[in-house]
């Protein structure tokens, strides 16, 4: 029997008259990789911020790992982690120092061994002693991912995990995520603009526009339903306001 790990019910977020998220509901099962897709301003980042508890919803309910995120957020946080290219780590600290601090915040046992294992896995050991600010975008992303995997989270939320990465680094990041999930049965929830990434990693897609969910399904199912070649074309249909079966050439 499948277990629901993320349950969102009638979630709203208003900024004054602006409805950033407008009554969305969805469920993600344990071990699934779910992508939240949509154009800029669709409400993806707002939704992720609410899932993380960084943003309070105007209305609605979020349950992660069986806990109500509004009431018992701190019971969930040790079992969850997150990575985003838009949220940095302290610039002046070295990579090792940053990871050590976060390992202690998450209560990781045998910090040194954990750092070494992640260093090998993500190939970041060579710059462990370099200040975070001196790293390239690709190196920063791998370090942020190491931070996100420190506590071996059951739920991993990723905001554009391969944004601004070269194809080689992006591929390596995706492989790391796949390996981690295969090993741990973790649930991955990601927002992405990279459709080939979504096709490769995800078994569930939630498509958003103007704060609402406009469609949902497995990537292959959506491609078939929209009569398209790939998710890129499905995404364009959604972004341009077309429904499934309403094909333009």
């Amino acid at each position, binding site marked *: 029997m499948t277990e629901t790990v993320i349950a969102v019910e009638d979630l709203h977020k208003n900024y004054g008259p602006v409805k950033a998220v407008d009554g969305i509901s969805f469920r993600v099962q344990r071990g699934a990789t779910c992508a939240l897709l949509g154009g800029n301003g669709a409400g993806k980042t707002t939704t992720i911020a609410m899932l*993380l508890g*960084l*943003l*309070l919803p105007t209305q609605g309910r979020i349950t992660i790992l069986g806990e109500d995120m509004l009431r018992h957020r701190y019971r969930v946080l040790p079992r969850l982690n*997150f990575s985003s290219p838009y949220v*940095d*780590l302290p610039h002046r600290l070295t990579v090792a120092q940053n990871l050590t*601090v976060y390992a*202690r915040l998450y209560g990781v046992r045998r910090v040194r061994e954990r750092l070494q294992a992640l260093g090998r896995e993500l190939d970041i050991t060579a710059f462990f002693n370099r*200040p975070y600010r001196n790293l390239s975008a690709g190196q920063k992303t791998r370090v942020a991912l190491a931070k996100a995997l420190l506590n071996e989270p059951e739920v991993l939320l990723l905001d554009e995990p391969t944004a601004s990465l070269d194809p080689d680094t992006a591929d390596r990041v995706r492989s790391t995520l796949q390996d981690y999930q295969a090993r741990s049965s973790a649930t991955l929830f990601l927002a992405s603009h990279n459709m080939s990434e979504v096709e490769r990693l995800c078994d569930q897609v939630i498509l958003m526009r103007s704060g609402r969910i406009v469609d949902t399904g497995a990537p292959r199912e959506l491609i078939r339903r929209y009569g398209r070649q790939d998710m890129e074309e499905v995404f364009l249909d959604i972004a341009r306001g077309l429904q499934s079966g309403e094909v333009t050439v």
Partner: protein
Amino acid sequence: MSLSVRRIGAMVLRYGYLLRSSWLRVLELAYWPTVQVILWGFISQFFMTSSTLLSQVAGLLIAAALLWDVLFRSQLGVSIVFFEELYSRNLGHLFVSPLRPYELILALMTISLIRTLIGVGTAALLAIPFYGYSVFSMGLPLLGFFANLMVMGWAVGLMVAALVLRYGLGAESIAWIAIFALAPISGIYYPIAILPPWLQPVALALPSSHVFEGMRAVLLEHAFRIDQMLYAVLLNGVYLAAGVGVFLFSFHVARQRGLLFQMGE
């Protein structure tokens, strides 16, 4: 309410790493307090030749300058260190970790204490060979004065941090000017009785005024004014509760407005 010493320690370690990363930062901590002591030391020496009051109590101005710096450094130790999280756009990661806001507050207070001890401690030690004056000669009352000024600095620092959390780094200059607004009415170098009558009740609402009155009593009358100490402690209880309350409220507002995710330089 669960409190983790491990998580507080992790944050103190984070700020310790920052301090350790540059010897200039450590030097800077001691620089201004030392300059203050040198300046007031020479002023004291000059006045000692013409003032019977100061000739009786060498070091009155030096002690006042040092204690004032305890208040200033304590406040900066909370607010400036908190700004580091904004400069590095790190708040999102911090508050997705199990770290509670009150644990961050306790970590900020701890690192503020360490920074103040390094900065003001160095200046106080230098005053001994430079001017033959040891602020430690005040004895146990000094501990009470120091603790009260630290707590008041924390309270003001938390209010400044709350303002910046709410209004962004555009408000960061408040960190440098907030405490100076209180300087004229804290009676650092003169008794509160010097102030105009209408201003005296305002001054007496500050814990710092009672600390400096108490300091003068110790140095000029060799008397420990327990009443001044109690006023300072009671007022500090109110100030600290207000500082923590304002910071936590500001954190709640930041969660409502999505500021934790976006905030940075």
